[in-house]
C-alpha cells in the first residue's frame, strides 16, 4: 500500500507496540459510584412516581421497568469491570495515547502540536481516593478532546506540567 510514498512505513513509530500504563485501580470505585448514582436516581424517581399515582403496592409496569433497569445496571457494571483493564494511557515524545472500552476498544492518539490547553479536575470523590482527571483540549468541537480519569494526583500534575511547558515552548 501507499505506493507513491518515499517514507518507509515500517520505520515509523508504531502505535501497536506501546507500553501502556494502566489507570489506578481505585478509579473503578469512582466509576461504580457514578454509574450507580445515575441508575439509582432513575429508579428512585420511578418509585416516587409510583407512590404518587398508586396508593398501595407497586404498579406492574413500573416494577417491570425497575427490574429491567437493575438488570441493565448489573450488565453495565459487568462490562465496566471487564473493560477496566483496557483503561490505559501512554506518553510518547510527540503524542499522548489513551485507550478504553470493552465491547469496543477505542485508542485515541492526540499529537501534542494539536493541543490547545490542558486542565486537571478533581471531584470530591476523586480527592478522597487521591485521584485526578486530566482533560486535554484540541481546537474545534468535533469530539477530539481527551479526558483521562483515574490518574494519581502526582502523575496528572507531572503530565500537566510537561504538556504546558511543551505548549509554551513551541509558541
Amino acid at each position, binding site marked *: 500500500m501507499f505506493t507513491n510514498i518515499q517514507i518507509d512505513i515500517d520505520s515509523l513509530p508504531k502505535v501497536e507496540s506501546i507500553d501502556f500504563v494502566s489507570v489506578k485501580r481505585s478509579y473503578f470505585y469512582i466509576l461504580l459510584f457514578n454509574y450507580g448514582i445515575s441508575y439509582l436516581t432513575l429508579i428512585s424517581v420511578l418509585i416516587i412516581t409510583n407512590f404518587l399515582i398508586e396508593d398501595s403496592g407497586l404498579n406492574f409496569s413500573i416494577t417491570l421497568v425497575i427490574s429491567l433497569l437493575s438488570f441493565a445496571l448489573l450488565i453495565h457494571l459487568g462490562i465496566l469491570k471487564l473493560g477496566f483493564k483496557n483503561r490505559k494511557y501512554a506518553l510518547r515524545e510527540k503524542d499522548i495515547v489513551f485507550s478504553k472500552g470493552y465491547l469496543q476498544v477505542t485508542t485515541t492518539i492526540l499529537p*501534542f502540536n494539536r493541543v490547545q490547553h490542558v486542565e486537571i479536575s478533581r471531584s470530591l470523590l476523586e480527592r478522597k481516593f487521591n485521584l485526578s482527571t486530566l482533560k486535554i483540549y484540541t481546537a474545534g468541537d468535533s469530539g477530539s478532546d481527551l479526558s483521562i480519569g483515574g490518574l494519581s494526583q502526582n502523575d496528572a500534575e507531572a503530565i500537566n506540567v510537561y504538556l504546558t511547558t511543551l505548549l509554551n515552548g513551541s509558541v
Partner: protein
Amino acid sequence: MEAYKFEKPSLQSAKGIAVIFVENLYKVIKNILPLFLVVAIGIFKNDHFFLEYQATIIIVLIFVFISVVITALLKYYTFKFHIDNNHFILNKGIFRKEVISIQKSKIQNIHIKQNFVQQILNVVALNIETAGDDTTEIEIKAISKPMALVLKEVLLINDKYEVDEATENDNLYFKISLKQLILEGVSENHLTSVVLVLALLSGIYDTLRDFIKFTHLGSFNLSASGLFESILFNIFLFVLLLFLGFLYSLLKIFILNFNLKVVNTKAGLEISKGLLNKVSLHVQKNKIQNIRLRTNRLKKYFSLYSLQFSQIMESKKQKEYMSIIALDDLQAHNLIDKFYKGFSENSQIHKPEKYFMRVLAIQYAIPLLLLNIPLYFVSSYLILLNIPLLTLLIWHINQSYKKNYFSIDENYFISGSGNIIDTITDYLELKSIQSVEFKQTIFQKKRHLASVVVYTAANHITIPHIKVAMAQPIVNYLLFKTEVGDKNWM
C-alpha cells in the same frame, strides 16, 4: 473608500432600531404563540370570549408592544463598537454591561448577512466569528453595505483579504440559473423533510381530525362507524404528507440558495446567496478543514454536484451557508483543486472488508423483524411486504458497500461513502488532522479487523472495517504526517 473612521466608539445605523425591534417582536411572538393559540381557540369555541376578555387582551398586547420598543431602543443605544490597536472592541448590554475585545488575528471569518427587514431598510448585518465558543460570536445588526465592506477589509487585513467591487464580475466563477435552482430542489432527497412533516402532522393528528369533523370539510364522515372514511382520511393525510415534504425541501433549497453567486478571490472564495436572508461569506483557503462533494442518483443525471466547506467552530446554520450547489462535475473538481492543490483521485483506492455489509445487514435486520410482528397479527398477506423491503435493503447495503472507499497519499485523505441514493466524497488535507482513533469491537477483534476515525477541528471521518494489518500502518502514517507538521495550522 476609507471615509469611515472606526477609532471612536460608534453606534450602528439608526435603522438598526427598526431591525432590533422587528427581531425582538418576532422572538416575543414566537414565545407567546402557544398562549395566542389558546386565545384563538377560545374565540373559535365561544363567540363571547373576545368580548369578555377584550380589555385584558388589548392591555397585554399594548404592554408587550411598548416593552419591545423600549428594549429595542435601549439595545440600540448601548451597542457601540470601535477598533483600537488591532483589537475590535464592542460595548453592549442594558443591565449587564459587557465589553468584548477581539484581537484582529483571532478573527476566523466575517459574514455579511441581510434578512428580510434589512433588505427593505437597505442595511446589512456583519457577523464576526472567532475560534472560541459560540457565545463570543458578535453581530452588528445594521450598517450600510459599503461601511460593512470596509470594516470587513480592515478587520481581515491580516489575511491580505481583498474585495474589489470592480473586479467582482471578472472573477465570477459560478452563478446559479433558475432552472438549476429548481432542478436542485426537485432532486433533493425528500425523505428527511417527509419525516419532519410526519412528526409535525402526528403532533396535530387528533386536532386535525377534530377540525375536519367540526367543519365538515370535504365529505368526510369521521364518526366511529365510518371505517371506510377513516381509511380515506388516512390516505388523504399520507398524500398530504408526501406533498408537504416535497414542497418543504423544494422551498428550503429555493430560499436558501436563491441567486447563488461564487466569486474567486485571492485567499479563497466569496459565496453569496439567499432570498429572505441574503448572506455573503468568505471561504478562506487556510481555514478549510474538509471539503465534501455530494450528489445523488437524480442529481447526477442532471449533472448537479454540491460542495460543502467545513471551517473551525461553525454553527449548524453556518454549515448550510458554506455550501455551493448545482455545480457540474468539472466546476466542482476545479474548485476542490483550487483549495487542495495537486490532489489526485488516481491514487490507490482501498475498500473496507466485506464484513461491512454484514454489520449493516444486522443493523437493519432488527427493525425489520420488529416490523414483522404487528404485520403478522394484522394479516398474513402483509408478510408479502417483506419481499420489496428486503430487495430494497439488499440493494441499499450493496450500494453502501460499493460506494465506500478511501485513499491516502502524501498530502490528502479522500474518503467515499454513500447509500442507495446519495454519493458522498470527503476530501481533507493531512495537515488539518487533529487526532486519530483506532477502534475495535470484540466482533472485529475475532476477525482481525478495526476501524480508524480521523478527526479534524470541524468533523470526523471514519474508515470502517479494514484489516488490523492495514489500520495500524495508516494510524502510524497519519500521526507521522501530523506530528512533523508545524503548529501553525489554523
